[in-house]
């Protein structure tokens, strides 16, 4: 009789412990890795709607067509929070000191994964007026903004020392493929740094 009463209690306790464990160790981490800048916050679109009404219209049109813009407004705190979360896993670096177009102007990104950027571009042609900056990001994103260039003068400045070093290193590294390695079962190529393997490319080894 006692055993019959104990079994449901035991399974309930087990379920409770599993939930508590996942909340403590998994849930909190997942929570910390999401931030207020997810999705499209139309904060800046609304702010500038009198000055740039076409952007408000564009936003409404893309949403109506099921095209999802990303990072329409990204505050500094939001960006810092996001990066802090990812830096917990690996040191990616720092957030730019300079304010981005997402922070101070109207800007939005579209993922190139689902082809949303193609539709967004078509809608933009017939809707947006004024200065529209379109930029394809290397990493799967299409950026649209009413802002000026995001690139800095340092992008074109370059460095002779770095160019010369990289040219020599590439020439020297032809034999050992510049230290790049392939890890069986993993995509891309890696460079060994201490005991860590750092992912460097998506394509097969360069020579």
């Amino acid at each position, binding site marked *: 009789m006692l055993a019959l009463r104990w079994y449901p209690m035991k399974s309930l306790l087990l379920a409770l412990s599993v939930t508590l464990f996942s909340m403590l160790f998994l849930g909190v981490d997942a929570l910390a890795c999401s931030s207020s800048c997810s999705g499209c916050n139309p904060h800046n679109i609304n702010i500038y709607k009198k000055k740039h009404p076409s952007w408000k219209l564009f936003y409404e049109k893309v949403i109506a067509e099921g095209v999802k813009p990303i990072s329409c407004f990204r505050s500094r705190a939001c960006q810092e929070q*996001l990066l802090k979360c990812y830096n917990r896993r690996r*040191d990616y670096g720092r957030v730019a000191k300079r304010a981005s177009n997402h922070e101070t102007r109207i800007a939005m*990104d579209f993922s190139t994964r689902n082809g949303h950027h193609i539709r967004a571009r078509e809608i933009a042609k017939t809707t947006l007026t004024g200065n529209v900056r379109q930029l394809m990001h290397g990493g799967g994103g299409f950026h649209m903004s009413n802002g000026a260039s995001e690139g800095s003068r*340092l992008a074109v400045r370059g460095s002779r*020392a770095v160019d010369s*070093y990289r040219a020599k290193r590439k020439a020297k590294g032809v034999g050992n493929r510049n230290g790049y390695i392939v890890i069986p079962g993993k995509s891309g190529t890696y460079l060994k740094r201490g005991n860590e393997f*750092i992912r460097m490319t998506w394509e097969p080894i360069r020579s």
Partner: protein
Amino acid sequence: MKKLIRLTITLCILSPALGEASPKKIPVFACATVQSIDKEAEDCDGNILFAEAAVLCLNKLKDLVDAQTASAKKLMEASTSAHTSEAANYGISMDTIDQLLRSAKQANAQVAIYMKNIYVPEEFGLVEAGVDEDEILLGEKCYSENRETLLWVEQDIDQIIDELEAMKKMSANLGGSSTTRKTGQDSLSAPAVKAGGQGSVGNPKGRDRGQSDISGTEKKPEKLAPTNR
């Protein structure tokens, strides 16, 4: 008074010879600090300045090591090819090798600090849309190319450290009667350091490397990094 003058003259004449016996003072080694780079760099495009500082740091280290070890390397090669077991005078003291090793490790630590301080591209926000963060970062040249340069520089400095460790080991094995070995005798009784050995105490590499004493930036505890997400 005359005796004193004579003694001074004698010392002046003998000083070059005495100088040989004492370890050479090598110039103080320092690379650019993050603070100084940060005066100009403010975003991902500024990462070129970190890459440049790392390359200049490596070049400076190479020049320093070459200047101090050029003659030693020649002698070492000659003695190795002759298969002689005679104690060799490489013209470089253990102290000098130790100083060079310290400088190389300092350079490595500084490049590791550059790595931590590079700027991520603005599109990092795309991770929220489910785009892999590696894909975003590797897709942006301002991040991927400059980080690649920093990693290559680290590897090159590691190689210099390996060579210096090998030189130290060889010098310890062969140079028992070297006239320049007036100091650093303790190293003879210490176990030989395996050149290029992973996890060797005397040769920190990659994330195992120690703190830099240049910028005073505190080293965070080591993290387990996922490599293929």
